[in-house]
Every structure is written in C-alpha cells, then in structure tokens.
C-alpha cells in the first residue's frame, strides 16, 4: 500500500517536473503533459491521423507474422540442435557467436533485399525473435534430467512418448521464457524497422509527425505504440504464468 503510494508519488513528481520544465524551456521541444493529453485525444478520435487504425493494423500484422515465423523456425532449429548432439556441438557455438553481433547490422541488407515494405520489417522482427527462442529451446533440452529419459526408456516408452511426457514438460518453463523474450524482441524488431525506414505502420506515422515537428502528435503516437507493446507483453506474461502452473 505504502509502496503503491510512493510509486504514484514518483509518477506525479516526474509529470509535474516535466510540465514545469517544458513550460520554462521550449513547449515545442519538450511537450508538456498538458499538451500531450489533447494530442492523444485528437489521435484517438482520428482527427490528427485518420489513418491510425490501418497503420496500427499493419504494424500488428507485421508483428504477428514475424513472431509466428520466429517461433516455427526457432523451435525447429532449437530441437534439431538439441536432440542431435553433433548438430548442437557444431552449430550451437556458431549461433551463439552470431548472437554476439548487434542484430541491427543485418537491417540494411534486409532493407536492400526486401525493400521498404512490410517484408523487411517482418524479416527483422523474425531475426530478433528467432535467436532467443532457439537458444531457450536448446537450453531447455539440456536442462532436462537425462535420468528421467533413461527411466522412461526403461519403462518401455517410445521416443515420441518420451518427447511428450518427459522432454516437453521438463523444459517448458525455460522454453516459455524464451518464447516471451522472443515476442518482446520481435515487437522491437518490427518497430525499429519501421522507424529506420518505412512507408506505412506506426513507425511511419511517428517519422511523419517527427519530420513535420508535430511533437505533441509524436508523443501521442509513441503512447499508442507503447500500449501495443505493453499489451503483447502482458499477454505473454499471462501465458508464462499458466505454463509455470503446469510444470509445478
């Protein structure tokens, strides 16, 4: 209770300081909350950007496709590397080394290859989501107690049964963590892609508002995008909690 009050107080102080600083400084540059709120209302009433719904939909669709591909490819590669020891030993370290490269270095190539439309954003969102999912699958398989597999085999379980009854439950927690991180990163990938260069989507609107120095609209667009980000993460965390209950 007291913690909640303290947190509310922190938020209030930050907003107030922002308001004062913005008024003293440049309201255009610092966009006080008193200017951001009307801009957000205009945005939501489709006055400032009537095409907001279409663009929101485009971004959401890019995220869904990118993440779907990342999950499929990440699970496939992760299981392949985890279940076949030689593959894992050879390609696991190579993947980990690639993970040490800041992913954004691939973006210009993707833009060159896929153009400025949705495909390059999907490709980038896919790339960012793919790594954590693959690595979590690998880690999950490695943490399953080999003793359990042996016991299941001794009881005459066939490989498919071992997979479903022993492997998946044993690794679920780690796997779900990776799926959640993957989603967050797919979202980041799509948004980064859009802001670095796009014709449509929330990133394009943000760039438009920024280019015309419509800073209050820019803040409103950022807020709406953040709501999308928070909503996806909340959904993922709900699933994660479900999974935790299954494993226990």
């Amino acid at each position, binding site marked *: 209770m007291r*913690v909640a009050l*303290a*947190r509310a107080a*922190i938020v209030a102080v930050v907003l107030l300081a922002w308001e004062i600083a913005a008024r003293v400084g440049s309201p255009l*540059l610092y966009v006080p909350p008193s200017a951001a709120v009307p801009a957000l209302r205009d945005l939501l009433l489709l006055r400032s950007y009537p095409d907001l719904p279409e663009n929101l939909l485009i971004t959401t669709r890019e995220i869904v496709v990118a993440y779907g591909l990342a999950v499929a490819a990440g699970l496939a590669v992760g299981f392949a590397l985890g279940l076949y*020891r*030689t593959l894992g*030993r*050879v*390609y696991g*370290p*190579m993947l980990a*080394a*690639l993970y*040490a*490269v*800041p*992913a*954004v*270095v*691939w*973006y*210009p*190539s993707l*833009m*060159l*290859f896929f153009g400025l439309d949705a495909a390059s954003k999907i490709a980038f969102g896919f790339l960012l989501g793919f790594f954590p999912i693959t690595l979590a699958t690998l880690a999950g398989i490695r943490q399953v107690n080999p003793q359990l597999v042996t016991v299941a085999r001794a009881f005459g379980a066939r490989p498919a049964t071992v997979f479903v009854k022993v492997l998946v439950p044993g690794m679920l927690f780690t796997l779900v963590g990776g799926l959640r991180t993957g989603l*967050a990163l797919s*979202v*980041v990938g799509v*948004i*980064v892609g859009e*802001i*670095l260069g796009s014709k449509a989507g929330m990133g394009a609107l*943000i*760039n438009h508002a*920024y280019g015309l*120095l419509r*800073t209050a609209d*820019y803040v409103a667009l*950022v807020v709406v*995008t*953040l709501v999308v*980000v928070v909503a996806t*993460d909340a959904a993922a965390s709900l699933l994660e909690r479900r999974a935790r209950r299954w494993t226990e």
Partner: protein
Amino acid sequence: MTPGRARVVGLQLASVLVVVAAWEGLARAGWVDALFVPAPSAVALSVPSVGREAVAALADTLAKTAVAYALSVVLGVAAGLVLGSARVFESTVRPFVIALYGMPKILVLPWIVLLLGYGTAPAILYGTLHGFFPVAVLVTGAVRDVDRHLLTVARSFGARPLQLYLKVILPAIVPSVIAAMRLGVVFCLLGVLVVEMFAGLRGMGSLMGAFANGFRAPELFAATALVSAASIAIVLGLDAVNDRLSRWR
C-alpha cells in the same frame, strides 16, 4: 557419441565453406539477383575499394561506442550498487526500471535527435541508454544476492560499512559485472549503430545505410561482415578477461 573438438571445428569450417561455395555457385548461375545478393567473390573484390572508408567509419562508430560503454558501465554499476543496497527503495522503483529496460527505446530516438541534433551526442546518449539498463539490472541483482553470511563474517571481524563494500560486496559482484559488461557492449554498439542509421552523418551505421540506399550490395555485405567481426572480437576479448579474473570460481 560426442564428436571431438577437432572434428567439431572441422565440421564448422566445412559448413561455412559449403555455404559460401553454394552461394557463389547460385550467384554465378544467375539464380539469385546479384543486385541484391552479390557473390562472395564480388564481396571480396569490393573490400579494397570500400576498405579505407569502412575502417574509418568503423573507428568512428567504435569511438562513440567506447564513450557510451564507459558511461553505461560506470553509471550502471553505481546504480546497481545503490539499488542493490537500498532494498525498500529498490522494490519501490523496480517496476519503473523494468519498464524502462523493456521499452523499445527506438520510440524516443526521434526526440533525442530533435534535442541533440545530428552529431555525436545523440549516438552517445542513445548507446548509453541501451547499455545502462542491462548493467544496472544485473548488478542490482548481484548486490542483492551477495551471500549474507559473508557480510556477517566480515562484520564479526570488525568491518566498517565502507570495508564491507570494498572487501566483500565489490569482489563478490565481479563476475556479474563482467557478465554485464559483456552484454552491455553489444547493446551499446547496437544503440550507436541505430542512431547512425537513423540520423548519422558519419560512422558505420550511416555508411551501411548509404550502401543500402545506393544498391551497393557488395560494399554493404563487406561492411556488415566487418562490423560483425569487430563485435565478435570484442565479446571474445571480454570473455578472455573474464576467465582471467574469475579463476576462483
């Protein structure tokens, strides 16, 4: 059956060679458009022409990254020490820290550029923003998880608060700090490259953006390979330092 180390390295090299050869073959046969995916030989041939420019741009980027990195580590470790020690304060502000850590920072990039212009400053600020949070979060956890018993032991030997930090907490968190530094350097480099791509006048990010916009695929691929190699080299270097410093583990 587990393959030996020599065989693993051999298979890794062979895989790379096979991919490069297949790629070369496909490109020569005209199955992929050389405008978008140049043959490896074309990329190699572009290295002399692009080399000097790319190395200069990389140096520029790495210099900004170094400043952002130093700031991230110093500020991140300091914040981690404060947050890890002050538990009530930490539990109060934790949601904010996590929210700021998880937020796609690209959303505030246009605003940063608006405030700071197109020079070096936004790259350093944005790079620091990327590096700071993972370092701060990891160090906070490490300070919080320092074995309480070791602190009790040190107090029983008369350690004063400053000595608790110097003799127990700081040495105990060294491995976490190094892990954070390893993670942080990639984040800082990423942040700097993003700013350069978005608004850079100089540096590797803007050079790569220019190559992409000019459809200069061989040069772009060469530049990408150069940045990747530099990044991997930096991380491997930090790993070596880590091994040296945590022999006691």
